[in-house]
């Protein structure tokens, strides 16, 4: 394991220390420093993605498989059974979109966890970062970009499979809904990456969260198919508040913010109401993670 290092010939002038104070004083604003460090950390994640594209490929192939294979599962159900959707494929589109973005965001903490375990995070923490939140910001930017890309592919794919395409305002709203969910779940995952002892535990949490949250949402079947207790669970699941509005936008060209998109056991939820729930979910996630990160970054 030991290796030979050939003696380096040093030019003494190049070794002279800079004087840390002068170095900091000569810096530009804190904001541009924050941008510099966040951009560099984000670039690292994209270089990793470019050299190891298998996760990206899997992330694009998986939703397509969902649409094609799972969509075909209920191809012969009587028309109209799945609410306003013409066929199950169209019904499923919104679910796959949200589920894919959710899964990607849930995994956001894994690279950070590996950096912790391999000691790479220490390299970042001994550096004079303006704010250590740049580490979190870089991951969030990276995951968000990926999710937008995945969502675009799913929208194109489901349009190709006959699910139709909403107008531009509708598409913009679909994008916003996905982003809201991704930001919230990414924050939770990054928080877990610092709170849990290791990647085994993080993967375990991802494992027990991922599929159950999918089944206990309206991704695969409408609320009306479920027993009362599951209706309650699905109505408390944030994923439903992302799925139902997207589905409504796909099925109703005349959607408005006041349209009722989901009839839960406790109330009728409008499109605006769903957005509010998602914003609230994101705010709670960010706030709780913020205090957690402040502690481990102290």
């Amino acid at each position, binding site marked *: 394991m*030991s290796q030979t290092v*050939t003696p*380096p010939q040093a030019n003494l002038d190049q070794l002279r*220390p800079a*004087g*840390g104070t002068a170095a900091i004083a000569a810096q530009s604003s804190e904001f541009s420093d924050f941008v510099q460090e966040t951009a560099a*950390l984000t670039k690292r994640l994209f*270089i990793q993605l470019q050299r190891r594209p298998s996760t990206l490929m899997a992330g694009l192939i998986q939703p397509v498989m969902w649409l094609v294979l799972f969509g075909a599962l209920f191809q012969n159900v009587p028309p109209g059974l799945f609410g306003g959707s013409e066929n199950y494929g169209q019904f499923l589109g919104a679910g796959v979109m949200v589920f894919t973005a959710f899964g990607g965001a849930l995994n956001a903490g894994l690279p950070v966890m590996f950096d912790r375990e391999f000691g790479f995070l220490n390299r970042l923490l001994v550096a004079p970062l303006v704010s250590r939140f740049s580490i979190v910001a870089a991951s969030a930017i990276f995951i968000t970009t990926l999710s937008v890309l995945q969502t675009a592919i799913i929208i194109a794919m489901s349009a190709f499979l006959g699910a139709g395409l909403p107008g531009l305002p509708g598409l913009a709203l679909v994008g916003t809904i996905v982003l809201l969910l991704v930001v919230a779940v990414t924050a939770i995952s990054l928080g877990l990456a610092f709170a849990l002892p290791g990647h085994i535990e993080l993967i375990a949490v991802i494992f027990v969260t991922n599929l159950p949250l999918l089944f206990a949402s309206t991704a695969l079947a409408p609320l009306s198919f479920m027993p009362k207790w599951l209706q309650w669970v699905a109505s408390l699941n944030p994923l439903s508040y992302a799925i139902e509005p997207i589905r409504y936008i796909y099925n109703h060209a005349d959607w408005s913010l006041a349209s009722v998109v989901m009839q839960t056991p406790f109330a009728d939820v409008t499109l605006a109401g769903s957005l509010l729930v998602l914003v609230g979910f994101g705010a709670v996630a960010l706030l709780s993670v913020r205090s957690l990160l402040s502690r481990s970054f102290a």
Partner: protein
Amino acid sequence: MAPAVVIEKLQKRYGSVDAVKDVSLTIESGEIFGLLGPNGAGKTTILRCLCTLATPDSGQIEVSGDSVLTHPRLARQRLGYVAQEVALDKVLTGRELLELQAALYHIPRAQIKGRIAQVVSLLSLSEWIDQKTGTYSGGIRKRLDLAAGLLHQPDVLVLDEPTVGLDIESRVAVWDFLRQLRTAGTTVLITSHYLEEVDALADRVAIIDKGLVIATGTPSELKDGLGGDRITLRLREFTPAAEAESTKAMLQALSFVQDVIINEAQGNSLNLVVEPQSDALLTIQQALKEAGLPTFGISQSRPSLDDVYLAATGQTLLDADLAAVALRDPKKEKKQSMR
């Protein structure tokens, strides 16, 4: 001018383990300062507290006169930290890692290219710098890590066991490089459990044991402070215990012999502490001849840093190191080093 690093009454405990009990050190600007001690003595914890990776339970740490607790960013800008375990992103090339490092230290964009070219040539890395770090050998990884630590031209370069796992040739190359750094005005703080490393390299040494400083000074001060010379005597390659005992009794009767220890680990050789006198070796050889005892080997030396450690703790550094390694809990240590 304030000293490069001042550590005062530092304490840090992990769970029920007192990693650092009470450590005070002053490291002057422009010197190479060595922290010597066996595994588990608390050396790494001291460095982690200095580099703001761990928060002390109590005590003060200053870098160039500013507290690292109240001005952590300033301290991070002034320090360059080279950890014992080289953590590289194996997908990145060496250059990409240095570019990331440059941005994290806020080196102005216009200077980054030039600065990277400098450290690459300083550490003779040009052949490897555009390859992925996953393909690097141990020595090259260490060199890249050194380059990363030096990129922002720190006032104080902090190295945790810089030559563990390197062969002798690479070790000497790292030593030469650190000496050049000192000549250029950089303060260097290293930890080591290799006696010869600290002896050869450090201007001043602190010997650390069980979270306490047991001695501080230049290597020669510490060794001279012990007094006496060391004589190692081997009667045979493997001396019978009884013969060693009787020889010990005989030698102890000599007036200039202060102490005799039988070292069972080295075939019952006899380790003597004698008053520094030029004819001690001759007198002993004469006495052995008269008693009709054979001599396999005999040598006289000045005390080593190991003798300093031995005098303070009652065991050799190597023995303490082996005992500490046996007691280590890798899982717990991993947890301590993770943030």
